[in-house]
């Protein structure tokens, strides 16, 4: 059940359990839909540099969002717009998006540092102007 806060500005929250709200008055609560991202499949986990190894340079990622809206796929970073933008566009809910990632994509990013593991993050902005959080699980 989505939570609907009472009307008006003076909404007092009582936090129970282990949650400790941050100090200060500037605690912003966002009520709304946060798009959930599902990675459907990744065709291969290793991409080879085509300068040294022709072929096997592309991995196909299929993913979908539970909500419609603009999306960003970034390499690295710790939140939306903090990584290297690999791809952006619009998607709508429960529609599988296919993204082909090549070695050139990784080599062209500002986070490129040679052989190694690279994290790709997908963010979708829901109808409430809220981006999917970093490392959603």
């Amino acid at each position: 059940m989505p939570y609907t806060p009472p009307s008006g500005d003076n909404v007092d929250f009582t936090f129970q359990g282990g949650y400790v709200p941050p100090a200060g008055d500037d605690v912003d609560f966002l009520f709304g839909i946060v798009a959930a991202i599902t990675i459907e499949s990744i065709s291969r986990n290793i991409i080879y540099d085509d300068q040294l190894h022709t072929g096997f340079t592309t991995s196909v990622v299929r993913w979908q969002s539970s909500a419609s809206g603009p999306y960003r796929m970034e390499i690295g970073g710790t939140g939306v717009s903090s990584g290297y933008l690999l791809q952006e566009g619009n998607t709508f809910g429960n529609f599988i998006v296919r993204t082909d990632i090549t070695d050139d994509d990784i080599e062209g990013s500002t986070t490129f540092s040679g052989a190694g593991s690279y994290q790709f993050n997908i963010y979708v902005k829901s109808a409430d102007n809220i981006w999917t959080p970093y490392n959603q699980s």
Partner: protein
Amino acid sequence: MANYFNLQYEDTAVTSPGTVELAYGNPTSNGLTIPASIYAGSGFTPTHYKMWGVELVEGEGVVTISGAEWIAYTDLRNVRLARHNDPQYAYVKFRDTSTSGTPETDNFQSNAVTFTFVEPVIHATTEWETDFEELGFESASANILKNETYATEVEFAKTNLDQLAFSGRNFAGLRLEPDTVYINPSSEIGELIGLNDLNYVAITKVFEADEVPMITVDYGNGYETLTAYDNTVKTTLSGENDGRVDNINWDSGTRTLTFDAYKFSTYGFCTVQKVEFTNDSQTGGYIGDTGVIRVYVQDTNGEPVENAPVSISGTGDSIGSFQESMPVDTGADGFAEFNFDVSSVGQVIFDGNVDSIYYTDPDITFTGQATISGASRSLLTQYEQIYKTYDYIDTVPGVNDSAVAEPTTPTVSGLSDSVLEHDLNVLRTLMKQLKGTDDWFSSPPTVFDPENTDAGHTENNEATLSTIAGNTLDAKTIITAINDSNSGNGFSITPGDEGFLFLTTLDYSVPADRRGLPIFESTTNSGSYQDEGEQDRVVGIDLINMETGAEFRDASGDIIFAKFHDGADYSGTGNGTDVYVKFYTEAGPYATVSGTDPNSIMMVYPKRKVMIEVEEHEWIRTDFVSSWEGDEIIVGQVNDLWSYTGASDNERDPDWASVGGMPIVYNQSSLKEALDALNDEFGDTTYSGTYISDGQSITGSLDNLDSSMFALSQTVTDGIAEKHVAVAVSGIAAGTSYQLPVGVSYTPSSMGVNMDVFLDGLLLAASSGEGGANADKDYAEISPAHVAFHFDVYQYSNITFKVRK
């Protein structure tokens, strides 16, 4: 449910044996054509390979191991899967012809790929133009949904629709009707189109008639026409309709319309509905004149048709020619305008058409007239003038100049028949100036009227001349108060006076000019003055007793006031020279009384003025309140009070002078608090002592204390003695005068009360009588500086004198 994944990037070649990978490693494929990556393994450089298990050339079937042939090596190629839903594999073998012996590798097997394709859902009014099997299923770059009956096609191309896929998708949101193409915006395909502003579908429709179609759209507010007659987008589009369609093309030969649709709802089509001559088209002209003829073109959607090519042809007499070359395109307003130069007498019937498809009905007849004398006043010329007022401006430059506002020569289009147009434009400009609005037809401004407003102080009254009338600064008089003390000398009164003649050049207020002095009564000129018999609030004169500064009151305390009477009734001249100030009480006229009434008075009298004459320093008439006759006096009195109390402007909390110690008055916020504090300190004047009496004044108390303290100080002073010691350097015989030490003196007394004398520490007693004449004790005080002992004093005896006085 994570929103992240990791990929490993490697910059070294695989060390494993050769391999072949289908569909980039995807275990499933919706299309038959897929990529295949081929690798011969580390240390082997192939020149050729052969592949089997999949179809290498479309239409030749799956290659078998025995049918596989050597192919020049390439690391990536496309292959086609067989159409079945079981796992499929590709096999590859490599060889190197550049090396002696032409070495070959083992056979390598690819990953398994399973083909699957779910036929997309479509609406009953549509069908796919090409079967997906023929297109390689998801490998298809585009397919078309069509309705042959309605001759309509909609192409879905992956290059035009971001994220377009066919397998398992729902295209039922597209419905094709006889005259419309509809995609439900909330359907799956509708949402896909709406995801990106660059997404579009290409629509093709073949029409049965030759009529040029124009595209319309309905997104909930009825149909609106999007395109012009020449298949361009109309220049008047805005908002949602701007950018809906593009790349519009009409092939008149095949009667085929194609266009790209970006935003979806319902697209329809319209054609030209009517072509007609406008009512303001001229139907005649004199030789030398130019007749203006206009044609309006409207579509079946009821909107003006833009860029429609209009031609006019004539039948009948040859009486002139058009300035324009045919055709003339309509503007955004749907009008095409033609100028016909009349060159001869006769009649011609004009017929208009668009593209030789649509024709005017009815046509119009135009008559050429011979020029006649006074043609400028003819009805025809007047009609033309009226016609030329169709267009207007309300910003005529120099309109406030007579040469422009009242021109003696034509000024606008150079024709004498343009005068009416010019005059109306001048009038419109003047109207705009008068109203102060942005144009000549806007509503006039509104003004605030306290009788026609609401809680929000809305200015409901239009600023018209009628609302201004009666509301100007000089529409009414007001009564001002004039303070006159006869230059500080006052006006003299003699006991028995009923008033006095006041010399002034101020005019009396009369009905024709109500400014001036309000005259309460006139016998000589009865009925001549505006305020005769008027109430005291208008004609009353306030009188001030110059000796007390208060109102003039009689012995009973009744206020004496005055009214102006015609000076001519009281031995004066009257209006413009003098006026009589007649005394009144509430009971009626009053004569002054000796002994109680003042000898000199001043007055505050009324004078009518119009608002615009009122000076900023002038004083609007007020009533007397407790002898305060006006702000000027009150201000003076307040100043006196400030001077008296030590206060000043805006000072409400006394600023006491700072003193040291513990003052009684230092932080009290008012004089009363200060006085109360003093009272507390001084007490209730009840005393229990000896020298001050209960209820005695401070002065009396201090005086008593002073007297008592003085007496006490005297007593104390009298008891204090100065000690002087002497040594008898030789014996002193009894009865001889002995001088006290040099500089010491005393006041002799009969009992020696003013000085004590000790001899070798033994106190002696003074003899009584003046100068100790009785010699009845030890010594005699014979003079202020001498004593005489009554016995002999031995040499070297210590004689001590303690002199008190």
